[in-house]
């Protein structure tokens, strides 16, 4: 299909404002009379609150109000559950325990908000927060996942008999039959740990209750403004029309900003109504580490069953999943893990047993990847171990088990995060693998370069990892498009935007239909006053779901344009074309009318119209896919390990993606690069270190290391192939998380390969230079130092 705008490297509409400091972020909102909030947060991960002494804070000059849970009276209530457990899954256990706006009676994790101080400035609010005294009775703390499920473990929630948050079992075929038929069974145990999302912008909420107009306006760093509006209206006893939520420019989201409701999102609007003043709360970085969600901790016990010629017959995975102190987000993450633990492979027998566990740590919700990196890590590790046992080339083993192109749509028979059976819509995996293999020079590296470099004493290794990414899930999104009399086009959608380039990629879709310049299309995203249906930006669904709704609405407007222009130009519709902002007769381009003039004609001020006429050139449409669209890709890297410092240098980094139709390759590359940078952090630099008391030991950007320009490969080479999704008219598949998903798996493979002579077996993630040193030391004790210096 040839496009004029879709698929082009078009620079972004939104950038000039961002580049000149003119874009509005939540903390930029300034309203006369605005008050500021600081929180007193729990020092303990698990403790009873015996007493809260707030009098000194209340007397502090400049303090307007101080609230504890008790002070909220009957209006204190836990947050709503965001999503329920999968209803289509038999036998699922789900214990819903929800966060509250302020802790009452007990704290469940360090950093939980206990007291809100409202003051004339943030400085004063923080001063007064220091004057609050909380008396605690410390309780035993639940941190370790396996111990949490032990018989003698202390319990996070007093009203539950155990720390079980959820249990679900999913299967395809019969693993035990596969096991009985197998020539080789490999069993391993893996430990995965938490990382933080670290959006550069911390969270924030500004709420403005206007008593006279009875309207609530909220600026919120949320990825899901419409559900926040609806939930806020319900909590405050307002109609949905009385609440407007604006998610303006966001300084990155990466998942945690899709959590709802954060305690602060419940509290700040409530305070604004109570005090009849605009209220602002902006999270600081330390709060971000303690009060914003994070994820990835799981413990897997895995078994894989193979034949001697490398055919995977079955996979069994028993895993524990850390959900933190509460589980408002349901089972999205472990469902994703279950969907990705068999990767792009045709494995007919699967048994996946998930136990979600409460711990005294902050709430777990998706971070870019959302349980997928864990699944990919597990299957790819097992593939590596299997290749080793079978004496097979690791890539050949993978290729042998890929889902073949004729098997699509392919039914994994596993329920996914949308609570539907995971159907892989389309794909042609082998050419993607071959392209990656060729781009990185796999065979030449193995046969020539690596032996040569090893002979020079260099520790160089290669990793190559295929993976799938489920994307574009429902339920639906909507878009309204209107041509103005100026000829400019307005687009409004409900999803929020956090840097993905929606202002441009959606404009490209509109331009394709209406023949206007991309710069003449202006998008409003994430303002419930502009569009109030939809769910939000998460699960790599923006381009697929809202993009498809954009196509539908643009097509409807095009139909209206052609109908009216046909009358005005007295020419059949099929002889008209839309180009350069005008409708013209294809063979007689001087016979034309501009879209702006048509828009004016479509909205007459006087005179009669035909019955049933809708005014303007405007349409609203929705898109709700029955199933998501699943992308496929391969990452490959060549790394060198410095045996003295354990630091890593990336010599090459390749990605090849098949995400169907590419809307804008420039934006796509940016998404991949950024995802890879997070993946590299997840692999070797970023780990949240919780001690046995549930305290986070590295809660600052000086201690929690996200990658800088130095840790990145100099070039990430991005290749594409295109298998259009049959489930949407754009043929596109999501790619927002693809950059991050396979990195830890690929990195670990490359690292083991680089250190092949030590027969290292890596069963954990993230690693770090220190941890790698420990692993090698444990393995070789006496010989490693001598070997390394040879």
């Amino acid at each position: 299909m040839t496009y004029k705008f879709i698929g082009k490297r078009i620079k972004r509409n939104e950038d000039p404002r961002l580049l000149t400091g003119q874009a509005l972020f939540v903390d930029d909102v300034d309203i006369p009379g605005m008050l500021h909030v600081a929180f007193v947060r729990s020092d303990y991960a698990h403790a009873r609150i015996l007493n809260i002494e707030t009098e000194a804070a209340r007397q502090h000059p400049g303090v307007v109000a101080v609230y504890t849970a008790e002070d909220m009276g009957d209006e204190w209530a836990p947050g709503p559950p965001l999503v329920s457990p999968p209803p289509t899954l038999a036998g699922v256990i789900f214990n819903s325990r929800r966060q509250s706006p302020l802790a009452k009676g007990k704290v469940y994790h360090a950093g939980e908000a206990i007291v809100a101080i409202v003051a004339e400035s943030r400085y004063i609010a923080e001063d007064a927060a220091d004057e609050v005294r909380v008396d605690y009775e410390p309780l035993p703390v639940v941190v370790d996942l396996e111990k949490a499920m032990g018989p003698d473990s202390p319990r996070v929630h007093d009203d539950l008999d155990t720390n079980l948050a959820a249990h679900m079992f999913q299967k395809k075929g019969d693993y035990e039959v596969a096991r009985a038929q197998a020539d080789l069974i490999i069993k391993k145990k893996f430990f995965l740990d938490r990382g933080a999302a670290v959006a550069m912008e911390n969270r924030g909420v500004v709420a403005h209750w206007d008593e006279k107009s009875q309207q609530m306006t909220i600026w919120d760093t949320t990825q899901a403004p419409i559900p926040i509006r609806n939930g806020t209206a319900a909590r405050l006893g307002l109609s949905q029309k009385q609440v407007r939520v604006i998610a303006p420019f966001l300084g990155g989201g990466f998942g945690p900003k899709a959590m709802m409701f954060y305690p602060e999102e419940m509290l700040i609007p409530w305070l604004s109504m109570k005090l009849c003043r605009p209220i602002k709360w902006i999270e600081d970085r330390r709060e971000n580490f303690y009060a914003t969600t994070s994820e990835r901790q799981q413990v897997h016990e895995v078994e894989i069953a193979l034949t001697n010629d490398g055919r995977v017959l079955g996979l069994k995975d028993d895993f524990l999943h850390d959900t933190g102190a509460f589980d408002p987000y349901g089972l999205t993450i472990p469902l994703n893990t279950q969907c990705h633990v068999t990767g792009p492979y045709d494995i007919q027998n699967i048994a996946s047993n998930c136990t979600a566990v409460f711990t005294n740590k902050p709430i777990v919700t998706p971070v870019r990847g959302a349980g997928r990196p864990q699944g990919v890590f597990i299957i790819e590790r097992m593939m590596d171990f299997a290749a080793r046992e079978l004496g097979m080339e690791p890539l050949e083993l993978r290729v042998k088990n890929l889902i073949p192109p004729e098997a699509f749509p392919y039914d994994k028979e596993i329920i996914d995060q949308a609570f539907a059976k995971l159907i892989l819509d389309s794909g042609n995996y082998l050419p993607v693998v071959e392209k990656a293999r060729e781009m990185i020079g796999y065979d030449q590296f193995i046969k020539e370069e690596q032996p040569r470099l090893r002979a020079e004493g260099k520790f160089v290794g290669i990793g190559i990892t295929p993976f799938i990414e489920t994307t574009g899930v429902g339920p639906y999104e909507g878009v309204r498009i209107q041509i103005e009399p100026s000829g400019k086009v307005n687009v409004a959608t409900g999803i929020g935007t956090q840097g993905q380039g929606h202002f441009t990629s959606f404009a490209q879709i509109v331009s394709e239909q209406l023949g206007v310049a991309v710069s003449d299309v202006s998008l409003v995203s994430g303002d419930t006053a502009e569009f109030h249906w939809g769910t939000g930006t998460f699960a790599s669904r923006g381009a697929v779901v809202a993009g498809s709704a954009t196509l539908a609405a643009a097509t409807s407007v095009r139909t209206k344009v052609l109908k009216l222009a046909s009358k005005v130009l007295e020419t059949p519709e099929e002889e008209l074309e839309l180009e350069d902002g005008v409708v013209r007769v294809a063979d007689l381009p001087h016979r034309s009318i501009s879209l702006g003039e048509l828009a004016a004609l479509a909205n007459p001020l006087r005179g009669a119209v035909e019955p049933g006429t809708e005014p303007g050139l405007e349409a609203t449409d929705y898109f709700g896919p029955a199933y998501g669209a699943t992308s496929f890709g391969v990452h490959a890297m060549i790394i060198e390990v410095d045996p003295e410092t354990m630091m890593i240098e990336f010599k090459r980094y390749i990605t090849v993606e098949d995400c169907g139709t590419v809307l804008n390759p420039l934006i796509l590359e940016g998404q991949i690069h950024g995802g890879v940078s997070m993946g590299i952090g997840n692999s070797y630099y970023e780990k949240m270190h919780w001690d046995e008391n549930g305290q986070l030991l590295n809660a600052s950007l000086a201690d929690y290391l996200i990658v800088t320009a130095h840790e990145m490969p100099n070039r990430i080479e991005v290749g594409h192939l295109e298998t259009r999704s049959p489930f949407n008219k754009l043929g596109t598949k999501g790619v927002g998380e693809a950059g991050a998903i396979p990195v830890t798996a690929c990195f670990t493979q490359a690292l083991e390969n680089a250190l092949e002579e030590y027969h290292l077996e890596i069963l954990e993630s993230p690693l770090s230079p220190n941890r790698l040193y420990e692993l090698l030391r444990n393995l070789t004790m006496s010989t490693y130092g001598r070997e390394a210096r040879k």
Partner: protein
Amino acid sequence: MSDLFNVNVTVNGTLYEREVEPRILLSDFLRHDLGLTGTHVGCEHGVCGACTVLFDGNPVRSCLMFAVQTNGHEVTTVEGLGDIDDLHPIQQAFWEAHALQCGFCTPGFLTTLVPFLEENPDPSEEEIRNAISGNLCRCTGYQHIVEAVQLAAEKMRA
């Protein structure tokens, strides 16, 4: 409430005369007293670099300075680099190379890079990576930023 001090500071060519508490951070002063919200605050402990501004032409972390320290000095923020219709060559290069996504860290990169490119009109890739190693970006993976700096250097030399 502590005593107020006079601050007479020239920001983006305009002289501002204000009275502030001595503890007010420069970042808060710029953003909330002067309304120059292009300077962003990402960590308030001097690591992320988002709040970088030019202090007498040199990049500094505005979250690690007090407003009173700028008395009698000149400060340049992202708003002072170029306008929407008249972008600075570095801003233009960031646009063309897609060197920003959410754009939150971008002002700090731009203010770091203006003096860098003035001093290094033809930097190597290694020099560029060194120059931006004190600025964190979670969206781009830095590759397009490096390319934007190369592009800007080229434009500015021409």
